[in-house]
Each structure stands twice: as structure tokens, then as C-alpha cells.
């Protein structure tokens, strides 16, 4: 504070010093000023000590009267500011000089004032933000205020005057043209500078021109190119071609497309090639990875700049196999060529038939040929070929070929199926085919002419279960089916059982049944009667005449009449029980008759293996029919049927022969035996007429011979009633036939037969081990409150019925392993076509008689099953387990 006071004092002192002079003076007022361009300012010159002749001269920046650039000033001191701030500071010096006038005029004094001219110029460009597509133009508007509109405006892009090709150009008129290629920064800045006029310049100003005002806009460059490559996904076979199309929108004019495959422009042999027109050619072999076809949009002339790109990954795969036709649909045994048409065949395509490779002939990708040779064993079967392409792109398809005999069938499959169920151990496909072609009569003649299966000698000394196994094997595999079936049937009538009889006696008995199956019933009666097996089983062996109060054993005498030949009641020729006028059933024989016949059957013993009759009862079987020891034979008179009398003192052989003949001639024999054979082979409830027709053939085969089993069997099977499917016709399949029918129908080789015999036991029928002389089941067993005879139902219980169903389940589900070789590969292939599968199963197991409702139910389950094999399993299981299969009609 003290220093400031001192300074003020000093200034006052100086002023005081001027005041003392008397020289003219001029003072320009105001002493300082600020003025807007183009505005006026009145100066005043305050004179002192001025002469009378005087002149005031005004200057602007030393130029008298001023200039446009810095402003003008009138002689009256009116300053007119320039239109534009003249300098960056805007300062101009206005000076006033006091001059004397006249000669010798001289400047007397001057004063100056610094005038500051403000910069009021304002440049505004619009819009301040703009999206501009690459290659597109846009005109920005400029507006100038506070300055003449004529001032020059310089435009910049990213500070480059008038921009550049890289960031876009801008004209002096503000027309921005975006670059063709995207710059590194797609956001560019447009700037405009309002330039002060350069002194003396043209008005465009130099680069150094002073900027009065500046403004900028942001330009967002946009790449609007949109490229779509079609197709967007693609699978091609090796060598395949595909024309791609690229659709471009929003690209700068003059753009260019560039095609590449897996980043190789134009591609190459290993990834495939592509033309500049987009035609792709797949490589000849499958590349390690899928080629990627790429198309790019490039700005005109660009090499590296890509506006847009699109790709399609091309899966190079072989086409899946597709078979549209296979011809022929069926062939006869012999050479064939199956021609498959479709697509996707390759030279490497393979074919298998039921799991075994066959060699196809590749013709083209749309044709494959399979040469082969159908065997007679394949008759009736559907050969299912699996056609497969190898990896990579493995695929498979199926073709089917039915093997059928040539010529028109004589029987329907239903008719053939029915007869085969009656006459064999179950229809196989080839049996159906054969029978359909040759007809019933010829088929029966073939069967009658066929040599008999044999029981090997070695089985005599093994457990009977080996014989059981052997017989099952014969039933499954041998061709003399009818003989095997009839012999089995005779076993069920002329019962002996492994519970009491060993192989040594059982095997010869079985041989008798096979030998006499198509022979004469009398011979059968005699052979079996004298067989040591029957001798043991029903006690004729070593049955001695009465002695010391003991009576001959009645067993055989009773059962041969009751069970093997005549039955309890007198029968009409039609097998009906005869009654007296009171309705009482008439008996065939009485207890007295049994005692008489028991006396006949005395004196017989094992064959002693020596010539001549033995003289002692034998207790060791040397083989051969029993022989008589006369002294144990009852030689008394015997009264037989129909008043026949055996005179006393006949040898045992004569008595036996005469007694068997006496039974053989009994009128009951034909109807009794005929009806049982019908029940065992065809139907449980034959009509009396049917039985009567058979009894007539039994009585006379047409050549006057009684008891001709071949004629009887033929008549039974050819009888019209055997072909009926009435509601009460047919019979329940016994367990042995149930098992063999399934295995035969499946064409499943069995390597372990006893194992199957175990299962018939579970089902209530242990083969060759009937529980009693009444066989496995009684021919008189009835169901439905007695309404129907249905013998096999005697052993059809909740347990055995379950055992049947479970046998089917176990067999089909593979629980028997390799013991039963079900041809799954063929059946699974059939399941590819569920309708075909159903047709086949229906034909083989039901003779094409499955009802529509049953087919629907099974097919539904088939379709719900998982995978081909289970589909086949389901179709077979439900068919086999069904009562419709088990009841043979």
C-alpha cells in the first residue's frame, strides 16, 4: 500500500511538468475502443493550443483515411470497422494528426487510439453427425454469420484439406464422398474453416490463412455391403458340382467378387475348385475336413479390403444308399441276378445275405447287380440282402428276394400250412412252398416213399434221454416227417414210458413204431405186444399162468383192449358210443374178458438170443421179440370176443396170434384207432362221419386189406374235414410240436437237442416219459364244461402255459445262446419292412390266417420295439405265444 501511493505521486508530478508547455496538442478520444466489424465509431480530436489554420488528419494503421482491410475513417473521425476482423488480435491503430495548413504545413501533434475489432465471424456446418456409406456422397451445408458470406471456407477430412481417397474427399462446396474401402477408423471428422481474406489475395486464402471460425461434423462411415452365398449348406458326393450364387447389396459400385475354397482362391484339387463364376467342383476323394467355399466382396481395385464375406461349408460325402426297386421279386432255385436300382451305389458297395458276404456287381451309382444261387432249402424264404457302402459315409439299405418254386401253386399257403401242421413236426418255409407246388397227394406219396429215419444201435446202451434227444433231432431235421409224426402218435397210443423202461427195450419199441407207421395195424399190435419194452411196461413179460391160487397178471390184457385197440364201449362205425334201449352204454368187455385175455398173455419172456424157444423165464434181455416158455403158458380154453374160443393146449404163439387177431377183427378197432389218429393228427372233435370214413378205410383199404395204416393216414389227411376250420375243429398243439414247430418255422439249427426236451418237460410233456399208460394226456379230456374234447388241454395249466410263453421268450431273446441258431440277421433285415415281416411270420406260423385285429395288435408292438432285431423278436414272440398259434385249426 505504501509503494502504490508513491507511484501515484510520481505520475502527478510528470503531468504537472507538461502542463507547463504551451505547444499545440491533439488528443484523440476515446483513447481506446472495441468495435465489431462493419460498425462505426466516432472519434473526437480534442485540440489544445491549435492554430487557427489547422487540419486534422485521420489514419488507420498509418493509412490516411484507412482501408477496407483495417477500416476506414472519415475526415470527421468516423471510423468504419472492416467487415472482417483484420488480424488475429483485431487491433488497429487509429491516429489523428493536427496539421497546420498552408505552405509549410506541418504536423503539429498526433495522438492514437488502439481500436480492437472483435471477431464476430461464425461458421456452422450441418449436420453435425452423418452416416455415410462407403463410396457414397453427401453434401454438408455451411452457414456463416458475423462475416460476409463470401468468405472462403476450407473443408478437411481428418484434418486433410479436401480429404483423401482413404478417408473420403470433400469439395470446397462441402460435398463429401466416402471412400470405397473402409478406413482403419470408420469414424472420420469433417471440418470446415472460415478463412479470413488474405491480404490482397484472391479470396481463397492460403493455407496459412487465418481461420475466423471453424466447425466440424462426425461422419460415421458405414459398410452397407451385404453378401449372401447360396446354397448355405451343401452335401456333395466326391467329384460332384455345385453352382453357387452370391447376391450382393449395398456394395460400392464396381465392387469385385473373389471366390475361394478353404482360403485358397479358386481352390485346388484337394479341397475342390471354384470358378470366378462360382461353379464348385468337389474333390475326387473325401478331404480330411469339409471344404469351406467362401465368396468375398472387394471394393473396386482392392486386394486386401473385403467389404463382406459369406461361406458355405461343403460336406463331401458319398450319397446314402437308396434302393428304389429290386427285380425280380421272386426266383426259383438256381442262378439268379438280382438287379437293384436306386442311388448311392459305389464300386465299393458290399452285399451280405443272412450275414454272409456275396459279391455284387457295380454298374453305376444307380444300379447294382447281385448274382447268386438260390437253393431248395431257401424255398419259401425271403432272402434279405443287406447292401452297404463302406466308411466313410457308410450307409446301408435292404433288398428282398423271395425264393419260390416255379409254376402255379396247387394249394394256398393256408391249405399247405394246415396239412403240414397235421402231418409234420411243424411247417418250414421250404415245406410250405414245396407242398403248395406239388399238392397234397403227391406230397403224401413222397412222404410214404421216403426211407425211414433210424435209431442208432449205440443208443441201446445209453440213457433213454439220448434217444429222446435223437428223436427230437430227427423230428427237427429229417425229411420223413410223416413217418416220424405217425410213429410218435403210435407211441402216444401204445404207451410205454421211460419211467419204467430203459433204452435197451425202448429203442427196439421205437423202431417198431417207425417200421410199422405205414404198415398194417395187426403187425403193429403183434410187434409191440412182443416187444420187451411193452412186456416190461404192462407186465406181459414173465407173466405166468395161474398157479397156487395166484392169477395171471391182468395188466396187459386190460390195457391192450381199453387203450390200444378197442376202448371201453362198443362204438358205432362213426366212433359214437353204443347204448342199449335204456340208454346204458354198452361195454366192449367185462372183467371176465380181462381175465381170459390175461391167460392168453402168459408164458412170454425175454428172447434168450438162442435158436429155439427158451425153457426158462429169462431175466436178461438179449434183444429181439419176446419168446414163449410153453410151460408157463396157460393152456386152458379161453373165451374171447364175439364168441371166439381158443381151444386148450395151444402153444403160446398160436394163442397170442389168435387173440390179437380176435381183437384186430373187432368192429371197434377201426373207429377207435381211426378216431384217436384223427385226434392226434387233425382235430380233437371229429364228426362221426369223418370217423366213419376213416373206419371204413381201416376196414378195407380198397384192396380188401384191413388195418392198412398208410391208407388210414392218407385218408385222415385228405379227408375234407381235415381242411375245415370250423370253430370246434383243430386241437391244441402239444408241447413237443410246439417246440419243434417254432424251431422249424424259424429255420433255426439246433446244436443241443436235449436242452429242448427239457423244455417240453416244463410244458408238461417229458418226451418218452408219459406219466402213465394213459399217455401224456387223455384222449377224453374235455374243456368248456365238457362241451369239447381237448386232450392236450389236460397238460395246459397256468404253469405249463406260462412255460410255453417263456420258452418263446427265452428262445427269441437269445437265452439259449448258440444252442439254437435263430437266423437273426435275415429276420432283422425283414424287420426293416414291418409289413413284410408280419406277412412272413403270419405265413410261416399261422398259415396266413392271422386276423386283422391280431395283426394290428402285433404290428403296433413291433413298431414300438427298439431296433430291427427286437422288432422281429416281437413279431415272432407275440405270434408264437398266442393261443391262435397254439390252437391248430
Amino acid at each position, binding site marked *: 500500500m505504501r509503494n502504490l501511493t508513491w507511484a501515484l505521486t510520481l505520475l502527478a508530478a510528470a503531468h504537472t511538468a507538461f502542463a507547463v508547455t504551451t505547444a499545440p496538442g491533439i488528443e484523440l478520444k476515446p483513447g481506446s475502443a472495441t468495435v465489431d466489424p462493419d460498425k462505426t465509431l466516432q472519434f473526437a480530436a480534442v485540440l489544445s493550443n491549435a492554430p487557427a489554420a489547422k487540419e486534422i488528419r485521420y489514419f488507420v494503421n498509418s493509412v490516411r483515411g484507412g482501408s477496407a482491410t483495417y477500416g476506414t475513417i472519415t475526415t470527421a473521425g468516423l471510423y468504419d470497422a472492416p467487415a472482417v476482423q483484420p488480424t488475429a488480435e483485431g487491433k488497429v491503430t487509429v491516429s489523428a494528426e493536427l496539421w497546420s495548413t498552408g505552405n509549410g504545413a506541418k504536423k503539429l501533434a498526433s495522438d492514437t487510439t488502439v481500436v480492437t475489432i472483435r471477431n464476430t465471424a461464425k461458421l456452422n456446418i450441418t449436420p453435425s453427425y452423418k452416416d455415410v456409406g462407403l463410396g457414397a456422397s453427401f453434401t454438408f451445408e455451411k452457414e456463416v454469420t458475423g462475416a460476409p458470406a463470401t468468405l472462403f471456407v476450407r473443408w478437411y477430412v481428418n484434418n486433410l484439406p479436401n480429404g483423401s481417397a482413404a478417408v473420403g474427399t470433400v469439395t470446397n462446396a462441402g460435398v463429401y464422398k466416402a471412400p470405397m474401402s473402409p478406413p482403419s477408423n470408420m469414424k472420420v471428422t469433417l471440418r470446415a474453416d472460415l478463412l479470413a481474406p488474405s491480404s490482397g489475395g484472391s479470396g481463397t486464402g492460403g493455407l496459412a490463412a487465418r481461420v475466423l471460425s471453424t466447425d466440424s461434423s462426425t461422419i460415421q462411415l458405414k459398410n452397407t455391403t451385404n453378401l449372401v452365398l447360396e446354397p448355405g449348406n451343401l452335401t456333395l458326393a466326391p467329384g460332384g458340382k455345385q453352382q453357387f450364387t452370391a447376391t450382393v447389396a449395398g456394395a460400392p459400385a464396381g465392387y469385385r467378387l473373389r471366390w475361394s475354397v478353404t482360403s485358397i482362391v479358386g481352390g485346388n484339387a484337394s479341397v475342390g475348385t471354384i470358378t470366378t463364376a462360382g461353379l464348385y467342383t468337389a474333390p475326387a476323394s473325401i478331404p480330411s475336413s469339409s471344404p469351406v467355399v467362401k465368396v468375398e466382396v472387394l471394393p473396386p481395385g482392392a486386394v486386401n479390403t473385403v467389404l463382406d464375406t459369406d461361406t458355405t461349408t461343403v460336406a463331401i460325402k458319398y450319397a446314402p444308399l437308396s434302393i428304389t426297386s429290386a427285380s425280380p421279386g421272386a426266383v426259383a432255385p438256381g442262378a439268379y441276378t438280382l438287379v437293384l436300382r436306386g442311388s448311392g451305389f459305389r464300386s465299393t458297395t458290399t452285399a451280405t445275405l443272412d450275414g454272409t458276404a456275396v459279391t455284387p456287381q457295380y454298374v453305376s451309382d444307380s444300379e447294382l447287380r447281385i448274382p447268386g444261387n438260390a437253393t431248395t432249402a431257401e424255398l419259401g424264404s425271403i432272402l434279405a440282402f443287406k447292401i452297404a457302402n463302406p466308411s466313410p459315409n457308410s450307409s446301408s439299405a435292404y433288398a428282398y428276394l423271395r425264393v419260390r418254386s416255379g409254376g402255379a401253386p396247387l394249394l394256398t399257403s393256408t391249405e399247405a400250412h394246415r396239412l403240414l401242421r397235421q402231418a409234420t413236426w411243424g411247417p418250414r418255409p421250404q415245406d410250405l412252398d414245396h407242398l403248395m407246388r406239388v399238392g397234397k397227394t403227391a406230397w403224401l406219396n413222397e412222404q410214404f416213399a421216403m426211407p425211414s429215419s433210424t435209431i442208432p444201435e449205440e443208443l441201446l446202451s445209453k440213457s433213454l434221454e439220448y434217444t429222446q434227444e435223437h428223436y427230437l433231432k430227427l423230428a427237427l431235421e429229417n425229411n420223413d416227417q410223416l413217418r416220424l409224426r405217425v410213429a410218435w402218435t403210435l407211441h402216444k397210443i401204445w404207451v410205454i414210458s421211460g419211467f419204467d423202461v430203459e433204452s435197451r427195450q425202448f429203442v427196439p419199441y421205437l423202431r417198431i413204431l417207425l417200421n410199422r407207421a405205414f404198415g398194417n395195424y395187426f403187425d403193429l399190435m403183434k410187434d409191440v405186444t412182443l416187444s420187451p419194452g411193452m412186456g416190461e411196461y404192462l407186465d406181459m413179460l414173465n*407173466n405166468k399162468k395161474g398157479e397156487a391160487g395166484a392169477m395171471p397178471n391182468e395188466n396187459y390184457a386190460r390195457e391192450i383192449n381199453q387203450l390200444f385197440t378197442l376202448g371201453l364201449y362198443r362204438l358205432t362205425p362213426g366212433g359214437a358210443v353204443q347204448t342199449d334201449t335204456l340208454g346204458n352204454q354198452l361195454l366192449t368187455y367185462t372183467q371176465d374178458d380181462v381175465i381170459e385175455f390175461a391167460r392168453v398173455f402168459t408164458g412170454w419172456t425175454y428172447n434168450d438170443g438162442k435158436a429155439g424157444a427158451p425153457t426158462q423165464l429169462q431175466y436178461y434181455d438179449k434183444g429181439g421179440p419176446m419168446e414163449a416158455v410153453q410151460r408157463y403158458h396157460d393152456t386152458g380154453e379161453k373165451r374171447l370176443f364175439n364168441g371166439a374160443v381158443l381151444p386148450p393146449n395151444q402153444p403160446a404163439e398160436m394163442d397170442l396170434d389168435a387173440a390179437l387177431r380176435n381183437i384186430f377183427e373187432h368192429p371197434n378197432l377201426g373207429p377207435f384207432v381211426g378216431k384217436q389218429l384223427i385226434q392226434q393228427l387233425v382235430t380233437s372233435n371229429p364228426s362221426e362221419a369223418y370217423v366213419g370214413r376213416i373206419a371204413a378205410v381201416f376196414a378195407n383199404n380198397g384192396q380188401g386189406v384191413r388195418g392198412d395204416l398208410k391208407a388210414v393216414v392218407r385218408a385222415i389227411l385228405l379227408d375234407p374235414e381235415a381242411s375245415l376250420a370250423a370253430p370246434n375243429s383243430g386241437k391244441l398243439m402239444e408241447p413237443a410240436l410246439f417246440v419243434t414247430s417254432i424251431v422249424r418255422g424259424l429255420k433255426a439249427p439246433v446244436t443241443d437237442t436235449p436242452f429242448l426236451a427239457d423244455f417240453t418237460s416244463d410244458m408238461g410233456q417229458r418226451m418218452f416219459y408219459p406219466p402213465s399208460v394213459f399217455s401224456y394226456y387223455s384222449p377224453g379230456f374235455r374243456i368248456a364244461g365238457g362241451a369239447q374234447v381237448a386232450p392236450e388241454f389236460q397238460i395246459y395249466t397256468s404253469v405249463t402255459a406260462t412255460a410255453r410263453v417263456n420258452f418263446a421268450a427265452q428262445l427269441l431273446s437269445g437265452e439259449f445262446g448258440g444252442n439254437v441258431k435263430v437266423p437273426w440277421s435275415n429276420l432283422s433285415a425283414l424287420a426293416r419292412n414291418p409289413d413284410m415281416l408280419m406277412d412272413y411270420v403270419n405265413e410261416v406260423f399261422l398259415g396266413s390266417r392271422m386276423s386283422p385285429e391280431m395283426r394290428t395288435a402285433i404290428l403296433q408292438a413291433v413298431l414300438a420295439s427298439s431296433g430291427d432285431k427286437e422288432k422281429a423278436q416281437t413279431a415272432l414272440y407275440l405270434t408264437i405265444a398266442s393261443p391262435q398259434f397254439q390252437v391248430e385249426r
Partner: protein
Amino acid sequence: MRSRREFLRKITALGAAGAGFTRLGSISANAQTAGGYRALVCVFLFGGNDGGNMVVPLDTARYTQYQRGRGGLALPSTQLGAVTAKAGAESYGIHPQLEPLRQLYLQKRMAVVLNVGTLVRPVTKTDIRNGAPVPDNLYSHSDQTQQWQTSNPRGGRTGWGGRSADLIQSYNTGILPPGISVNGNSLLLLGAQTGGLNVSPGSRLGVDSFGSEEGTQARQAAMAQILTFDSGVTMISTASGVMNTALQAAAEVNAALNSAPPITTVFPQSGLGQQLAQVAQIMAARGSLGMNRQIFFAGMGGFDNHNDLISSQQGLYGALGPAVAAFYNATVELGIADQVTTFTESEFGRTFNVNTGNGSDHAWGSQMMVVGGAVNGGDAYGRLPVLEMEGPDDAGSRGLWIPSTALDQYAATLAQWFGVQPVDLPVVFPNLPNFAAPTLGFL
């Protein structure tokens, strides 16, 4: 021989039949009061049991007749297990191999019924000569086996057990039929309304499944459907009915058997022993099965001894006695000894007269045994024939005894104890009114 069946045995609860789970027989209109558990167990001796050597009179006169009549078949009296009957008025010897049953006799848990057989009405030898009706086809295995199960001397289609069960089935709340056979199909159990179920030992109910879950379900559903098809064909509908019964019973029986406490009584390994063990196991499950009245059918074969009767009987009775005794012990273990009555049947007796093969042949009346806590045991019922060939009780010449007690009476006694009302007995046994006493008093 070779056992080939070491397979995985799967028992599935059968879903297919689950929806329509109904009682396997029809339900009679009048519900009755249960009144506790009672069961009959028939042991059928197939082939014709020679009762003449099973129970032998030991009083001197009749034993002498016996010895004379049977000749080579007669057993020494010293071998026979002596018992008394009729308050000591009669003495009998029981076959030595039946000693376990003789012990029950001594404990008054076993009774003997003498000379029982099929009859139309009481007959004498004279009546027969004069044409009085006798059962059809005497001496025939098949016919007499049938008649012993039907109690119908003309044959018949339904069993007396099944007909009895028809009348008492409302005692049961479970779905199983009252009759269960452990020995194959049994006519005895077949009624007009109720059938029999077969649950043989060593076998099983329940259908095996295989493959995928969805496939299994689809097959079960399809099978249930198939069992309803072709119902107009008698054999098919019958087969379907059997299978349906099996399916429905499977889950029930298997579950009950699995949940029932194990029986500690040891049974013989014989066929009959195992059958009766199975019966005992089912009885142990009676509560969870909802069974208050059951009739079981068991049996053994081999009695048709036309040859070598003596040695054969040793084996047969050696199997029969211990099996029945073990079963009785099992009922004691289960606490139902008084509620279970076991009885024998056999199609016929055998000729008193020996044949030249030291066997006996088909005849008629014979002895039966009844075992159980409810039995008025330690006694013999009925009377033996006069043991004289061609004598007053011989229907033929070799000692084919005319029964002095009818099967109808024997069976009616059992049926009445089982729950059949006296008034209903003639419904079950139409010929019963032909006999003076409808029941015999051994129960």
C-alpha cells in the same frame, strides 16, 4: 441228466393284466362269514393203491383170512405197526413204511377209513348180480381216477372240490381261485364257477421279459389284447383263459410267496414232499393272498403194482409217510394244524388175490387216510370187507371188494368240515341221499 437251464430267471410283475384285475372265479351272491382258515389237501395215489396192505386187520381171525387171501402178498404181522380202533374193539396193523403216520394215528391226528370206493348207492354182491347200478368202468384207471375226483359214478365234468369251492368262495377276499394244484391239471378242483390254479413246485408263474423297456411294455399290451381275440373259438378262449389266469395269479402268488416267512420244517426231497412243501408255503402266504378257504391237489404215482407189490410198496409208502408227516408238522409250525385236513384218494384198490407176478390187479374199494388236527384220529371208520375171495364182498373172483363206504360219504365229510352247509351237500354230491349216513364222523 444234463441240466441246461442255468438261465437268468426273471419274474416280472405282469403289467398287461393289471388293469382288469378281477377275481379269477365269479363271486357268489351271498357273502358268508369267513370263520377262520380251513384247507383241504388231497394226496392222490395214482395207479390204484393196494390198501389191502396199507391197513391190515390184526385180530387173529381176520389176519388169517388176510394171509390166506393175499398169499405171497401178505405181510408178516410182526412187521406191521399195531394200532387199535373203535375203542379197542378192533386192531389193525399199519404198513411199516407208514410209521410216521402211525405216530400221528397214535396222537389221534390220523384216522383210517376202511373200504371206501365209488358207488351209485349201497350194493351187495347180490344187488350187482341183479343189475343194481354200479359206477361206470370199474377197474379202469382213467374212469375211476375221474370218478374219485368228480364223485360222480358216471364220470362227470366237475370235481367235488371245485363244486364245494363254488359254494364257499365268498369266504375268500383274494383273487386266487380256492383250488390250487401242485400236481398238474386237476379235475377235483374244477367247479362250475371256480377253476384251479396250478403252482407246481420247481416251476413258476410269471412271464419273462426281454429287450427294451418300451418293447416289453408294447408286447405286454399286445398280449393282453390277443388274449381277448377269437373268443368264439372254444379252444382259443380256453387257452386264453388259462393264460390270463396265469398272468393274473403270477404277481399275486410270487409276491405272497416272497413275503411269507420261510418254513423251517424239513420236507423230504421226494416229488410229493416238494409238492407238499409248496402247499405249506402257499398256506404261509394265506393272509396276504386273502385266502380263508383253500383246497389243494397233490399226488404221487407208481401205485399200479401189477408186479412185485411188496417191494414197490416199500418204496411208495417210504415216500408217502414222511412227506405227509412233514406236512403235518409244517401246519403245526404255521399254527394251523387244526385248520388243515389232508386226505388220500386213489382210483381203486387192488385185487386181494395175488397174481403170478407177485403183484395185484385192478379192483375197487380200498383204505384211505385222513390227517390233521381237526381229525377225530386214532380210529378207523367204516368196515373192512369179508376178506374172502368170491365171498359176500367180492364183486368178482379175486377179491374186488365192494365198498362198504361210499366215496360220496368220505368226500362229504371233508366238504362239510370245509364249509359246505349240510343242506348243500346233496348239491355237491347228488348221490349222497342214497346213503344212510351222509357223513362219517372222522371230522
